[in-house]
């Protein structure tokens, strides 16, 4: 680290949004051949910082120096020309264009002023290969890919630009360990090649494995910069959240044996070749995890329960009685009382331009109204309850929910369903992109809900979470339940090996990646 010349330097960068100070005299030094991790809780200013670097956001003050020269970026295109490639948290792929189109998008190969499709195809294949995603067809449309594949395409797209500085803002948040391992191999190679990398993630283990240097942000300021490994996990988290921090996961209660019919169950559930004869049950008070590689049918399974899929075969049972659910509206109704925290809060969970109030109430309007007329007083009360319960940080109920930080937005999604007091809660990767502090609150909350009698089915891409949170974990592979893990059986080792459908002694991919 010492002696290495700073490739890029940010000094005294400030940015305000109305009254919100996103960045306050922020500093950052980026050096070649190093991976620099940026940590901070939700809304700390990480994304804003890198948006400034990438030319998306113009800072109110401060200077940026690239290789000794002051630079000002008029827009993302200018930053890219200077060799800065950025993978944004909210991704920047064009859904209706093909994977190949997207990968070469900034600077497609041309002949006679026309895009050379053959050359484009070659470039795209090479980039996908480098990102460890040769399985993605270059002609596929991005919108047909699941989120995890899109993240990989985004990485390939950044690589295709051959930048000097590569920024990854929670670029792996939807990836499972196997995919993350592949990406890490790529990143480490790039580091060897002398590229400067900025890495933002809320997954502490990833940072521990990957980073050389870490910078912690809090409330728009950098709190500390240190060499990776020089601080303990708890110390880091305390710097991030500015208070004491202990164990992440709440204790699991002993498994209670009950002869009541399970709140939620299914028998031989199959759908469109994506779900194959799945049978499972979740009892009231239980937190059941869904594991496995991404895209093995977990999402479809949750949607099937929630009445979104048609043409199901097999049976869904609520309290032991078979039901037919044709819509989320049917699934959330009183007797059933189901809730689904969807995968993508921005398109499925929230209406971003609408107020926090409207979003919180939206799933519970039937409960908050008499003869379809909303009881504003009751609404206000319930909304305030939910803000308290989940400690949602917001300037008020009437501001657009899109103006909250990602983590707080996620809490709103959860709160909007908890307002109904659901008996059955389905969660699709609910802590994606959420800081450790908030995660901890969510875990505790899930436990509390279970203790109050809710049945919880919980898909996560994060193995630690499954291990720490779940009473049982069902590992899916290719649309079928491959393995059920209980109690102490739930370990990273077991999760990974069954996820890969390896019998016997599969070794940890993360270890493998480190080699």
């Amino acid at each position, binding site marked *: 680290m010492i002696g290495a010349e700073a490739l890029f330097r940010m000094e005294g960068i400030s940015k305000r949004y109305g009254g919100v100070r996103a960045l306050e005299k922020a500093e950052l030094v980026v050096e070649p051949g190093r991976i620099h991790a940026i940590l901070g809780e939700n809304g700390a200013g990480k994304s804003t910082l890198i948006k400034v670097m990438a030319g998306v956001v113009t800072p109110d003050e401060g200077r940026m120096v690239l290789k000794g020269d002051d630079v000002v970026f008029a827009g993302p295109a200018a930053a890219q020309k200077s060799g800065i490639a950025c993978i944004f948290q909210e991704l*920047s*792929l064009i859904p*209706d*264009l093909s994977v190949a189109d997207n990968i070469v998008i900034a600077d497609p190969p041309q002949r006679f*002023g*026309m895009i050379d499709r053959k050359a484009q195809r070659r470039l795209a294949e090479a980039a996908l290969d480098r990102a460890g995603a040769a399985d993605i*067809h270059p002609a*596929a*449309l991005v919108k047909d890919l699941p989120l995890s594949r899109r993240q990989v395409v985004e990485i390939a797209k950044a690589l295709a630009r051959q930048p000097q500085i590569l920024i990854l803002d929670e670029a792996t948040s939807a990836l499972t360990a196997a995919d993350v391992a592949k990406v890490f191999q790529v990143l480490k190679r790039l580091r060897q090649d002398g590229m400067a990398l900025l890495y933002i993630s809320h997954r502490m283990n990833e940072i521990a494995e990957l980073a050389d240097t870490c910078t912690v942000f809090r409330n728009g300021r950098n709190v500390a910069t240190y060499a990776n490994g020089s601080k303990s996990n708890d110390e880091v988290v305390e710097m991030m959240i500015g208070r004491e921090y202990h164990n992440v996961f709440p204790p699991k209660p002993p498994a209670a044996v009950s002869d009541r019919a399970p709140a939620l169950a299914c028998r031989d559930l199959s759908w469109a070749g994506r779900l194959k004869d799945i049978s499972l049950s979740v009892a009231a008070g239980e937190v059941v995890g869904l594991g496995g590689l991404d895209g093995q049918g977990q999402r479809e399974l949750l949607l099937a329960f929630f009445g979104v899929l048609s043409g199901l075969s097999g049976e869904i049972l609520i309290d032991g009685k078979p039901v037919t659910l044709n819509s989320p509206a049917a699934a959330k109704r009183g007797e059933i009382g189901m809730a689904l925290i969807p995968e993508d809060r921005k398109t499925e969970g929230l209406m971003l331009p609408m107020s926090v109030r409207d979003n919180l109430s939206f799933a519970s309007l039937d409960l908050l109204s008499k003869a379809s007329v909303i009881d504003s007083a009751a609404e206000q009360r319930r909304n305030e309850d939910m803000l308290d319960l989940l400690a949602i940080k917001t300037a008020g109920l009437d501001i657009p929910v899109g103006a909250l930080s990602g983590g707080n937005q996620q809490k709103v999604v959860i709160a909007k369903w908890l307002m109904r007091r659901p008996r059955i809660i389905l969660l699709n990767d609910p802590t994606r992109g959420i800081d450790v502090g908030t995660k901890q609150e969510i875990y505790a909350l899930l436990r509390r809900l279970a203790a109050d009698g809710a049945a919880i089915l919980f898909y996560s891409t994060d193995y630690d979470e499954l291990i720490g949170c779940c009473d049982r974990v069902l590992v899916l592979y290719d649309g079928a339940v491959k393995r059920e893990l209980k109690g102490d059986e739930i370990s990273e080792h077991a999760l990974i090996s069954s996820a890969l459908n390896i019998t016997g002694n599969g070794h940890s991919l993360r270890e493998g990646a480190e080699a």
Partner: protein
Amino acid sequence: MKDWRYWLAEQRGTLVALAIFALMFTIYISNHPAGLTTNVAQTAANKGTLLALVAMAQTLVVITAGIDLSVGAILVLTNCIASMVVTGNAFETTLGVVFVLFVGALCGALNGLIVIYGRLQPIVATIGTGAIFFGIALILRPLPGGTVNETLADAMTGKVFGIVPASLLMLLAIVLVVWLPFCSSVIGRAAYAAGSSETAAYMSGMPIRRGKFAAYTLGGLLASIGGLFLTFFTYSGQASSATASTYTLLSIAAVVLGGVSLFGGRGSAIGAIFGAFAFRAIGDLMFVFDFDALWQPLFQGVILLLAVSIGALGLWRVRNRLEWFG
């Protein structure tokens, strides 16, 4: 290798439009008293080409997730101008044609500027500019009339070698000279990207403003070719608000029939051409079936309703209800 499947998926809208057109046109021809003579083909081609030009203009804008409600007004304005300037000797006529195309491009560019720099929603911005364009047309041509170089007009609406309708060749030339270069250029890709996801396109550093501007300008240009062709067709200019609104609405219908997504980012002008011809063929059915005159509008409306419902057949295959929402 399943590349062809991706290609097929990409071209589905165009192919469906082609199929609808083929079906309607076959019904039409097999019931036509004269059958498929060169004259019948020429008539159908001329009529279809005019709508196809306007539909292509609309497509360019729709691709950027916009919509051009002034396209009919541009058609009418350029029709009026063409009926004044496209006359005289070869040189004067050429100048006139260039001027008409220039005005069309200018109108399109104005739309583009208002939408891009004024940041107005295209649908309302073009309601406004459409009124302006029509007002100018009315000043230029308070009453229908004017002339056009009849040699050129007859050539463009006639047949080449006595067989091939010249209008189809013109359409082909436009596809080759305007459309294909556009959609395989960086600018064209930026237009698609802007229509698909403007934020993502911006973040990716694409020239979205240039892409949109090019789309609107070329849209105006194509509409003015439509205006020229309308002049060739009628030897005259007319500032008719009915023509303006009819062609605006027909262009939208043709674009949708041609598999272009009104939400932007998806579809091609070639699909829109087939959509336009399919739409014309629907109108032609009136001619060959002996419907009571008073029932014809109803028949046409019902066929249109059925044709646009064809897309709904795909719903049967949807097994994940979230796909309803695109």
